[in-house]
């Protein structure tokens, strides 16, 4: 198993399958450190900013004990020799002063224990757990900060401190320590430095005779170091995205694992010694075999780059598509919190270095139900030297991936500002429109290539339009594809897509148009435009007149593909507000103030697989699709209808920890992981509170859910209790809902009636390893809730069958 910390949770992944097996939740603030219990390697300690240390049984995902320390805990270390105490980093008084203290964990059978017995170990240390290491079976502890290496010997109770020259001159300017690791067998401390050097310190028990040697391969800061279990090799990683293995600690004998994709943040080694794992700044954990072969990748939403493309939905996979690794598009499954795949757009080796101007993927669009993907990449070194490339990718059914079809160099003279496909059915020819700052918009269509077999197809430019040499800023097709709207600075022009004739223009003289979209379904006669100066306009295309306008500083405007709703996020000094409205009526359907303190950059509607049925008027807009939005700090947030108790706070800090012990049949790796953006915020919906019973409040359900499947009695034994508990909760519900449920259950009966064990195969889209009713694994509370709903329905139906 590999453990990684993700916000308030600790996730347990299987090293073999990459699947998340358990989520240990219970901390009320960021988890900052995890360590295996040295006395029982089936148990895990974790510490958090909330001042508690918790002991878990991670096989079953059960919280065993909670120790309350009281201070904000920054890191946790356990040692085999220190029987009943652990080490934590706390800060006292001043915000920048950190101390390493040992905490005595009192033996007690109760679940909640106060652990107040602190004893001071080391001062002036760094808060990062990377900067502390215990060596030689707990003989000493080494800590680094700035230019100091401090070593505390537990037996002698002395501290020696070594200083590197920190003079301002060039040679030593980057001597800062960044991380430290201790040799498991010998008295040897490895330290990483900002200039990429690794120093191996020896003889450090003598203040005068200490000596060190240098290993230098990294050209930039060493992010983390780890010794292998036997100490024969040292692993290091940094911004080069290369894992370096130094064998026998010699400079000439090193092995590399290159192209790991992103900066290595942490390295950890399995207690059995056969696996390494690295966590990366792009929200990824790679499990690496002893022979330096990557064996598994646990990839979350890539966070590392600027999002230029915005959020898109791949019509085929329903995956969220956005900028991923540099030069890549990532396809991210929202349901599984997992990256589906990466599409390499730029197809060039990425060199990670400051000051290099990279090719950037700036625009992307899907067309024709996911058959086509258009991407734009640009690189601008100087004002006049713009490199621009548009690529068109065709979906290949055989390979289930996108294949490059057409590459267009310099499709426009200047930056491309917008890109859109015509998605209407009536067009046989896929059509793409690009708008550019050079004042033109171009229509590209798919044509037969000049191949004699007439089999190859390619894209060519069909029409170039412009309007008074204004810069084209946006383009948009109407739903049926008959009209094309292109905005030229302040003016919106409407073009007939059959003949490419200019039909009419709208001008509001209220600043440049920033967003433009047509209404859908019943509202398709409306065109919406948001301007820079904070005006939202709605034009009626039939009357060619302004229908209404509102004063709103719109940051994001997204139409819902499944309904006529349009979501707009406006920015004000207090925060971002969300408005959902129909173009036909100026009164918004729903307003949510202060959805986020940060600026919202992008938003998208994701169609639901199974339509929800929110009765309340305020949430009807969420019935058929969900709204996701991305803030400036790259937190991906969504709206859901959950109770505030289960609300998760978006977390921007991360933590880690590691320690390990040999184990029997399984591998245990402690890892750490950064995962910020995939926290789903649940906007508190007070009215919704009554709708669902809290799972925690019903002992029967929680018992069912928290007990491992293999220890549970048979399903039939539990069933009545379970149903009873649900029945109780049911009484709180409105009759209308029951009716709905009954409707649903009747639909499902056909699949269920013969089956005593409720088969949920119809719901595989939910994909939460839900096979049997009893086999429910403690899941993300959201999915758990969904299940619960289904349970309720199904159980009900079962009773009716009886």
């Amino acid at each position: 198993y590999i453990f990684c910390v993700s916000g308030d949770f600790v996730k347990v992944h299987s090293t073999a399958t990459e699947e998340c097996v358990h989520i240990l939740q219970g901390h009320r603030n960021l988890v900052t450190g995890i360590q295996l219990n040295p006395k029982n390697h089936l148990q895990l300690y974790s510490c958090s900013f909330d001042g508690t240390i918790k002991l878990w049984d991670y096989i079953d995902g059960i919280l065993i004990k909670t120790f309350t320390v009281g201070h904000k805990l920054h890191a946790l270390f356990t040692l085999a020799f220190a029987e009943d105490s652990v080490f934590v980093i706390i800060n006292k008084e001043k915000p920048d002063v950190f101390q390493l203290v040992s905490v005595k964990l009192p033996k007690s059978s109760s679940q909640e224990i106060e652990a107040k017995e602190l004893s001071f170990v080391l001062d002036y240390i760094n808060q990062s757990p990377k900067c502390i290491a215990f060596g030689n079976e707990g003989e000493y502890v080494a800590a680094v900060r700035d230019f100091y290496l401090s070593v505390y010997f537990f037996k002698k109770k002395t501290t020696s401190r070594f200083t590197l020259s920190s003079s301002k001159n060039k040679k030593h300017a980057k001597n800062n320590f960044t991380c430290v690791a201790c040799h498991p067998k010998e008295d040897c401390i490895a330290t990483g430095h900002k200039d990429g050097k690794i120093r191996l310190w020896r003889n450090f028990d003598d203040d005068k005779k200490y000596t060190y040697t240098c290993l230098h391969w990294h050209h930039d800061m060493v992010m983390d170091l780890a010794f292998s279990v036997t100490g024969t090799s040292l692993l290091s990683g940094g911004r080069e995205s290369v894992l370096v293995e130094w064998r026998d600690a010699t400079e000439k004998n090193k092995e590399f694992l290159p192209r790991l994709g992103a900066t290595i943040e942490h390295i950890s080694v399995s207690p059995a010694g056969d696996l390494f794992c690295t966590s990366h700044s792009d929200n990824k954990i790679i499990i690496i075999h002893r022979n330096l072969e990557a064996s598994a990748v646990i990839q979350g939403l890539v966070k590392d780059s600027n999002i230029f493309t915005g959020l898109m939905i791949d019509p085929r996979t329903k995956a969220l598509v956005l900028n991923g690794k540099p030069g890549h598009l990532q396809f991210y499954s929202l349901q599984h919190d997992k990256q589906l795949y990466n599409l390499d757009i730029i197809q060039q080796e990425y060199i990670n270095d400051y000051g290099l101007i990279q090719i950037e993927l700036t625009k992307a669009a899907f067309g024709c139900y996911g058959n086509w993907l258009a991407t734009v990449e640009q690189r601008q070194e100087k004002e006049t030297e713009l490199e621009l490339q548009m690529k068109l990718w065709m979906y290949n059914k055989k390979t289930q991936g996108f294949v490059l079809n057409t590459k267009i160099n310099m499709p426009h003279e200047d930056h491309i500002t917008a890109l859109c496909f015509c998605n209407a059915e009536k067009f046989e020819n896929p059509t793409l429109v690009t708008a550019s700052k050079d004042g033109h918009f171009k229509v590209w269509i798919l044509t037969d290539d000049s191949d004699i077999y007439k089999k190859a197809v390619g894209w060519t430019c069909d029409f170039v339009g412009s309007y008074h040499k204004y810069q084209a800023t946006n383009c948009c097709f109407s739903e049926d594809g008959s009209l094309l709207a292109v905005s030229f600075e302040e003016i919106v022009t409407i073009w007939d897509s059959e003949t490419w004739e200019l039909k009419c223009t709208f001008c509001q003289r209220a600043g440049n148009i920033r967003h433009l979209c047509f209404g859908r379904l019943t509202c398709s006669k409306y065109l919406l435009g948001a301007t820079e100066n904070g005006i939202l306009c709605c034009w009626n295309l039939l009357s060619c007149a302004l229908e209404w306008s509102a004063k709103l500083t719109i940051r994001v405007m997204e139409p819902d593909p499944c309904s006529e709703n349009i979501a707009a996020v406006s920015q004000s000094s207090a925060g971002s507000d969300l408005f959902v409205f129909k173009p036909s009526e100026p009164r918004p359907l729903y307003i949510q103030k202060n959805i986020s303190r940060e600026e919202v950059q992008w938003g998208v509607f994701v169609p639901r697989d199974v339509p929800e049925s929110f009765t309340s008027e305020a949430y009807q807009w969420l019935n058929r699709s969900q709204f996701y939005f991305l803030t400036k700090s790259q937190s991906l947030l969504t709206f859901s209808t959950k109770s505030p108790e289960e609300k998760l706070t978006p977390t921007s800090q991360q933590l880690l920890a590691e320690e390990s012990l040999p184990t029997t049949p399984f591998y245990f790796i402690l890892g750490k992981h950064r995962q910020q953006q995939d926290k789903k915020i649940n906007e508190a919906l007070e009215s919704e509170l009554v709708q669902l019973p809290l799972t925690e409040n019903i002992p029967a359900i929680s018992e069912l859910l928290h007990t491992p499947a293999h220890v549970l009695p048979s399903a039939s034994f539990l069933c009545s209790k379970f149903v009873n508990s649900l029945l109780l909760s049911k009484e709180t519900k409105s009759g209308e809902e029951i009716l709905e449920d009954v409707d649903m259950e009747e639909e499902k009966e056909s699949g269920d009636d013969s089956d005593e064990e409720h088969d949920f195969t119809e719901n595989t889209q939910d994909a939460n390893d839900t096979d049997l009713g009893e086999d429910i694994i403690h899941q993300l509370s959201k999915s758990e809730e969904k299940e619960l709903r289904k349970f309720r329905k199904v159980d009900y139906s079962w009773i009716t069958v009886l």
Partner: protein
Amino acid sequence: EFKVHRVRFFNYIPSGIRCVAYNNQSNRLAVSRTDGTVEIYNLSANYFQEKFFPGHESRATEALCWAKGQRLFSAGLNGEIIEYDLQALNIKYAMDAFGGPIWSMAVSPHGSQLLVGCEDGSVKLFQITPDKIQFERNFDRQKSRILSLGWHPSGTHVAAGSIDYISVFDVKSGSAVHKMLVDRQYMGVSKRKCIIWGVAFLSDGTVISVDSAGKVQFWDSATGTLVKNHLIANADVQSIAVSDQEDSFVVGTAEGTVFHFQLVSVTSNSSEKQWVRTKPFQHHTHDVRAVAHSPTALISGGTDTHLVIRPLMEKVEVKNYDAALRKITFPHRRLISCSKKRQLLLFQFTHHLELWRLGSTVATGKNGDTLPLSRDADHLLHLKTKGPENIICSCISPCGSWIAYSTTSRFFLYRLNYEHDNISLQRVSKMPAFLRSALQILFSEDSTKLFVASNQGSLHVIRLLEGSFKHLHTFQPQSGTVESMCLLAVSPDGNWLASSGTSAGVHVYNIKHLKLHCTVPSYNFPVTALAIAPNTNNLVIAHSDQQVFEYSIPDKQYTEWSRTIQKQGFHYLWLQRDTPITHISFHPKRPMHILLHDAYMFCIIDKSLPLPNDKTLLYNPLPPTKESDVIRRRTAHAFKISKIYKPLLFMDLLDERTLVAVERPLDDIIAQLPPPIKKKKFGT
């Protein structure tokens, strides 16, 4: 203030360092260079180059070692073992080992036996007798040349490095006990041969070898097995030296890197220890051919001609100037002499002399301006020596019409005749028999007398006539001592001659009466420069610890100024300078000024100004003109130091307003060395 001739056409290239041998008892270092020169540095006297033995073309030194009783031996490719006489500064004897070229030599731990490894694969044992060495025995003959030798500290076993293998000999029987084959593989590629450049034998039986494949290997001599292997370089590892305590050793590689290995305990509480490579030092650009390990420092030298002394910080008790890195490039003696009258410079090379006339200019300019030359410097003469021996010393007379130089066996005197631009050279033949070799030559100010310090310790005074000469007198050395004189100074009025040896005090002779006038009390540190001031006849002596004394010859005592400065002490920065003062001269019109220089600065001492104390700024940059005269007068002190010219080999006053400075930029030397091993540098 002065018009300065900035001379950069002295195309001098020091020879590369081949061997380094450190003597613990006397704290002296013997260094041999590729041209056969052997130099002795006194590490306690501020790393001063005390003595040197001139080289010989056919005598390429391959090994150098100290034996019991401060005896220095060298062996070379001509197959001879040479012992040097450290008092008389000549070769005591040379003895052929009859084994072809000698590649290696080692003295037994007790210092009484000498072992040489020869081209034909033989290892020969010599017994060191009080005045000679005597062949004792041959060890088992090996197949190929013996490139390195190492004694076990008990003296019972010897390790010998050959090509592809190391042999361990038992000294008593002379038979090979083990033969340890060295892996030829180098990073997967098989090289043709693996040359064992160095071996070291530790008292616990470990043999450490360094080889051409870049490996440092540890062998167990009892079983003949490889214990540990450190691959440290992509090129040859050429030298190894172990400290006396056997807790650290140093190796030098062909990439110019010196690696330090230390014996450290594996864990703090266990007695188990292991050798760990610790710090790399990159002070050289070229091959490090030789390394030595003194108790407190790592010493390395190589093809790039630098001798680098890197102190070990953990061994240095106090953080004084001894703890700083030293880099010695230039010899601490004078290679240049100057004829003031004709503005000529004589440059001494190993096998020839060059005579140059300085350029001249008619332009005038402000302070700091570079003046255009109206006439370029002329290369007048190129004088090649006869025979294979190197030049020891040379001199041109102040009038410019005499040139004298000496090799180890012959003394040459030439007369120069100037006819407009033509020069004719005439050798003065029939040198007297006693004038065979000179350590130092000096002409008197009026060019009528020649003073020669011979290696027998005697001083000859010769009167020069038009085309001939006459021997006037010989000052015999003080009774009992045979120490050679290395430095000479004559007073401008021609009455006084001062001479100094390597250690004893300075003797002052009266030339008119041809007798010893007095002896300046001896001082702990060797003399690096001597000069007698005009008019006052004050003798100024500079020592290797940067002390400067002024001694009045007529009064036979130190002058008042000298006593004052001794009482107050020199500025601490002055005492911390690491190159010796090599030349002292005087301003003819300003009797209070003393001009002196070392390799990195030029200084005018104004005796009339107050002395600086430790709080004042010693090195003041060029005084800014804005500063008021009051402040400038207040801050002015006796030492006016200019660091514009460096590295400075020679500087002298031609006349009242003209200085000549001879520089030798290090980059020019490096540019003329063979190219170093190419290494990929990151970011290029």
